[in-house]
């Protein structure tokens, strides 16, 4: 067992090396070389245990002595804006068992593999329409605005029953909420504005239900008195934000990465559905857009990786590092769409593993090949090093991806 070092802990950062936008930050890569569990300091001067390897992360994320409850005083928030909104944003993702699974299971039936497979024709239609519009408008295009963001936004809107014409509004709120640089007051205001909107929408669904998730939520939980409108709206907000920010960034960043690896791009463009499904797992592993790590707090003493983590101490599982762990993925820094990548932690691990992962998979499995087949001459319109990567957003990716063909 090692004692906590006396020297100041290195500051945790999401800053990547120049020219290496797809690789974890050099600071954390270096920490992984040193120890499986190591001290880092956070934005507010507090410290946390950074867990750097795959094995210990999976063990901890599955461990009931680890809490996802952000109300704990030791919980490691990502910024002042997230610190300000954490009490305001309580949903099942920051609950522990048994409350967590009871709440999560309200939605797991909506996101089964069968249900997601049934959406396939509708997603294909949306993709075709968006690509048609891009083609008609002609190059250049911003892939984020024209394809990567509208695709998952349209899909999650239809699934939830949120009017897509309100997308400018909810995308703006969402962008402020997940920007670590937002002023706390601005993050709170955006969070409240979106909540107010969704409360009204859930109340409307209770009166005039449609064939969508929010109507079911209103009927089953609001009208029965099992949940308040505030609770329903918070869950709706979580699903709305998680449903579009993540896939949108995977589409843009994945396309950007494939454009740097023409042989891998060709495999995705021309591959069988099975090969493309494998490629999507590899892109999820390689890019790990959930780059702030999985954040937890110990609720009992836990010994892991030769380190004693004491009850109350903060824990950050750096899933971007786990996804580059050479013990699990040979030659981990190489993008290889044919590798067996399914053990990646891009969706996290433990009972909180992404609820919408099978929706994301299908969207990505359909989006990449359709885009690459439609525009075989696709190329970056700007050098890689000049692209606006989302270093300070809770979800990594690109603010903009200018392309021509």
């Amino acid at each position, binding site marked *: 067992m090692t004692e906590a070092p006396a020297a100041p802990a290195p500051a945790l950062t999401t800053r990547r090396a120049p020219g290496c936008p797809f690789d974890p930050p050099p600071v954390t890569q270096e920490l992984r070389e040193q120890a499986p569990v190591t001290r880092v300091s956070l934005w507010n001067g507090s410290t946390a245990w950074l867990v750097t390897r795959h094995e210990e992360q999976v063990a901890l994320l599955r461990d009931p002595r680890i809490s996802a409850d952000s109300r704990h005083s030791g919980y490691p928030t990502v910024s002042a804006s997230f610190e300000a909104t954490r009490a305001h944003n309580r949903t099942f993702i920051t609950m522990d068992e048994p409350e967590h699974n009871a709440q999560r299971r309200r939605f797991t*039936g909506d996101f089964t593999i069968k249900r997601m497979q049934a959406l396939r024709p509708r997603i294909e239609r949306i993709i075709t329409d968006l690509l048609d519009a891009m083609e008609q408008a002609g190059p250049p295009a911003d892939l984020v605005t024209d394809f990567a963001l509208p695709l998952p936004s349209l899909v999650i809107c239809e699934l939830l029953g949120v009017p897509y014409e309100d997308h400018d509004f909810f995308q703006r709120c969402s962008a402020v909420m997940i920007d670590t640089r937002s002023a706390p007051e601005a993050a709170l205001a955006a969070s409240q504005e979106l909540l107010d909107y969704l409360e009204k929408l859930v109340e409307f669904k209770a009166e005039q239900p449609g064939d969508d998730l929010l109507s079911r939520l209103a009927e089953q939980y609001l009208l029965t008195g099992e949940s308040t409108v505030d609770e329903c709206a918070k869950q709706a907000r979580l699903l709305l934000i998680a449903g579009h920010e993540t896939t949108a960034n995977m589409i843009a960043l994945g396309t950007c990465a494939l454009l740097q690896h023409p042989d891998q791009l060709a495999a995705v463009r021309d591959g069988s559905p099975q090969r493309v499904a494998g490629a999507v797992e590899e892109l999820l592993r390689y890019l790990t857009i959930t780059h702030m790590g999985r954040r937890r707090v110990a609720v009992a003493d836990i010994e892991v990786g030769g380190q004693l983590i004491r009850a109350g101490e903060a824990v950050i599982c750096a899933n971007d590092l786990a996804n580059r762990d050479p013990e699990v993925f040979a030659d981990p820094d190489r993008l290889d769409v044919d590798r067996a990548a399914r053990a990646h932690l891009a969706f996290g691990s433990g009972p909180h593993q992404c609820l919408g992962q099978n929706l994301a998979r299908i969207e990505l499995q359909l989006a990449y090949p359709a885009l690459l087949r439609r525009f075989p001459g696709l190329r970056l319109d700007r050098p890689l090093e000049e692209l606006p990567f989302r270093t300070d957003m809770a979800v990594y990716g690109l603010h903009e991806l200018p392309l021509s063909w």
Partner: protein
Amino acid sequence: MRITIDEDKCCGAGQCVLAAPEVFDQRDEDGVVVLLDAEPPAEQHAAVTEAAQICPAAAIALA
């Protein structure tokens, strides 16, 4: 190989169905794992082992 599942732990991620669709399914109403074959044939063992390893909730036990 004998498979046991813990329904209470299951978080409905569906990873087992992706890994071994002939052995695992999901309940329609809440996505909880349904075991189709508790003693699968040898050709399924590798896929089932992977399913147990990647199950986020560690809800699949093999004996």
